[in-house]
């Protein structure tokens, strides 16, 4: 895993950035970016929401890694400071993973945390 060093905010690994770019390229819409949010729910209390969209909401916080933009809304931003989004495609794990230093616990599926 390689990570372009930025001091704070949400971190996107090169593997994750490449995957986002590939997914965005397959969509008809242009100017898509990765949006990550946190919402109440899931088995551990809070859950992540990952989408590709082109929305620009008031208060959005954005970072760019390897030419890919990752955005979160103002409500979710405090919960994602320093979180790393990676992409794995191995026999043990497939898909985006989120390593969040703010999470004190998480469920086995990795989609929910507290």
């Amino acid at each position, binding site marked *: 895993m390689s990570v372009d060093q930025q001091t704070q905010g949400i971190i996107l690994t090169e593997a994750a950035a490449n995957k986002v770019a590939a997914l965005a390229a397959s969509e008809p819409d242009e100017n898509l970016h990765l949006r990550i949010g946190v919402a109440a729910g899931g088995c551990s209390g809070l859950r992540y929401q990952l989408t590709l969209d082109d929305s620009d909401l008031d208060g959005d916080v954005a970072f760019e890694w390897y030419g890919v933009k990752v955005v979160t809304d103002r*409500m979710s931003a405090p919960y994602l400071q320093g979180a790393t989004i990676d992409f794995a495609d191995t026999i043990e794990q497939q898909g985006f993973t989120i390593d969040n230093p703010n999470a004190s616990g998480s469920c086995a599926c990795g989609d929910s945390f507290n």
Partner: protein
Amino acid sequence: MSRVLVCSDRIGLADPVIASRAIASGFASVAPGGHQFAVVPLASSGPDLGAALSALGQETTLVTSGDPVDLGRRTRAAMDAGPGRLLVDLTPLAEATPDDIVGLLAGLGIDAATDDPGRLRGLGAAVDLLVILPGDQSAHRLLGLEGVAARLGYAAGRPVADVLAEDAELARRASDWGVEDAPGLGAAGGLPLVFAALGGRLLSGFAACVAAARLTETLSRCDLVVVGTDTFTIGNFGGPAVLGLAPLASERGIPCLALAGSVDISVREVRRHGIEAVQSLAGGGTLDADAIREASARVARTWLA
């Protein structure tokens, strides 16, 4: 000689005041003159709460409704009637949403779009306002990811933009009315925000009874706590009265005995939550004061020997 604190919620046909007195009477009949009893009714909402607070020396005017506009009208009428203590029970509006704030304001005679924020604040100047929150919502906050807009909005599948807009609107209202976010403000769809702007104090029915009775002071001087409730199951764990009182007794090292109209929970679960034992009064919803008194006396013989 033991000092026994007897607290009860409604049991069967007996409201909290009658049930508490019946339990104490039953216990006292077994040990006349040998023990001291303090009796405190506990209720979470509605007329039972009004009766409990009245028995505890706090005369209140109770206002409640399942419709926010009607609640606003009733509250305004009660405030206009003159100074006094007003109890607004929000438990029928536990499923309200932030959209209902406009209706509540309309009922109060406030135009949400045009009226000066100070007009709302001035309405409640002469009234001691207590706002009873739905029991399981006392910790709900108004704003942010754990606030009412996010909690209800994401559960309903609303877009992020809509949730953020509603959260921002609530923040604006709170700022205009000089109210800071706090636990309970996000209960009942955020309706407590309006009552906080009126100067209201937010609390659960149980907390209102505890405050009225100065219960924590009494607890520190008693040797045994007896709490009554209608049903005691693994699902409700005895309801608000037991859930609230058991930890207070446990942290003071005071044994707590529960009496219930019907019991459906294991001994192990009961002990894990600080209750020494739960005894069935064997009557369920048909119990009246006499039956409660008689059943309590039977239980007391094994505890006050």
